[in-house]
């Protein structure tokens, strides 16, 4: 299952970043596929990106909501929120574990040999604060003299945007380097901070700062496809605690909002108590008993 997950992660990486003509055009993809929502965090100003980032699109729509109402268009973000909700209702944060390019990037960074550390559990709530303030409230209500808001999370925080779009665009269009200022330095510092943190701890951005993960986490109790615990089989041995990349104690909280359904816990559960299922119907169970040679 772990190998399958790696293949799916790679597939989604190339599906959402499938425009490889950018070294020739020196610009981003501008085709019709950009009407499709990227399930994971993937900046649409990335030269290779073929889809739109739901967090970026949502902020853009909220920032321009007054202008759209004044012009009689009433763009409220229903399409983007609806698409995100459909994805959340089906698989929730399984997207973080299986389809997010920035999640994959952090997983690869964490493979670099180094001392490994945990993450203070209370930091998980920071991503909900970022979702509410930087993605929703500030773009809606912090407006300029023209009645237009700003994309606060993208502009001041998003390390995925700096990695996937900021740095590549500076390389593709060197003339843009004349525009560099404190804003880029701030965003570059945040990116470097999260890169170093991802080497030392597992998926720090997903666990503490991703507003898209925070949105999908709201579906943890009602999503269609989810990892479930068979309480009758579980012996509370704690084997699932050590392997979870998100720091979840699955036997204690099987509906945990942090669970990304990566199935690392299912792999080590010798009791076969952890299954991937469609609302009660098990579809995958991956622990295999070691083969014993007959004496």
């Amino acid at each position, binding site marked *: 299952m772990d190998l399958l997950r790696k293949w799916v992660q790679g597939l989604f990486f190339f599906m959402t970043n499938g425009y490889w003509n950018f070294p020739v055009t020196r610009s981003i993809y501008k085709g019709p596929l950009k009407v499709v929502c990227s399930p994971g965090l993937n900046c649409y100003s990335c030269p290779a990106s073929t889809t739109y980032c739901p967090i970026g699109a949502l902020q853009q729509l909220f920032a321009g909501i007054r202008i759209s109402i004044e012009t009689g268009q009433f*763009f409220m973000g229903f399409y983007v929120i609806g698409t995100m909700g459909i994805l959340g209702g089906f698989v929730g944060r399984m997207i973080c574990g299986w389809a997010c390019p920035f999640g994959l990037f952090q997983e690869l960074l964490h493979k670099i040999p180094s001392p490994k550390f945990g993450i203070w559990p209370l930091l998980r709530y920071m991503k909900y604060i970022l979702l509410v303030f930087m993605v929703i409230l500030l773009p809606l209500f912090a407006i300029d003299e023209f009645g237009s808001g700003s994309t606060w999370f993208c502009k001041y925080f998003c390390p995925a945007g700096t990695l996937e779009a900021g740095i590549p665009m500076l390389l593709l269009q060197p003339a843009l380097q004349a525009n560099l200022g404190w804003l880029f330095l701030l*965003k570059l510092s945040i990116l470097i901070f999260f890169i170093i943190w991802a080497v030392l701890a597992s998926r720090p951005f997903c666990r503490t700062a991703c507003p898209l993960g925070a949105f999908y986490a709201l579906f943890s109790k009602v999503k269609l496809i989810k990892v479930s615990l068979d309480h*009758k089989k579980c012996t509370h041995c704690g084997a699932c605690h050590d392997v979870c990349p998100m720091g979840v104690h699955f036997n204690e909280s099987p509906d945990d909002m942090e669970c990304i359904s990566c199935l690392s816990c299912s792999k080590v559960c010798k009791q076969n108590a952890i*299954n991937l299922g469609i609302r009660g119907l098990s579809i995958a169970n991956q622990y295999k008993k070691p083969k014993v040679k007959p004496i």
Partner: protein
Amino acid sequence: MGQPGFSTNDNELNQPVKNRGKNIKMAPFIVIILFLILAMIGIGLGEPSQALNQATQICLSCIGIG
């Protein structure tokens, strides 16, 4: 061995056939339908074209340049 199309989870297999479907909760379907309706409203308002228009332009200030 479980019946074809059914779970391999022992607890579910031990249940009477008529009770197995009750494990499937309705909440996810309601949530998905609600958001589907929301997305359809957005499509009716023409939001996809706005999302496409935004996504095909490089927002320099959004990526920390300018």
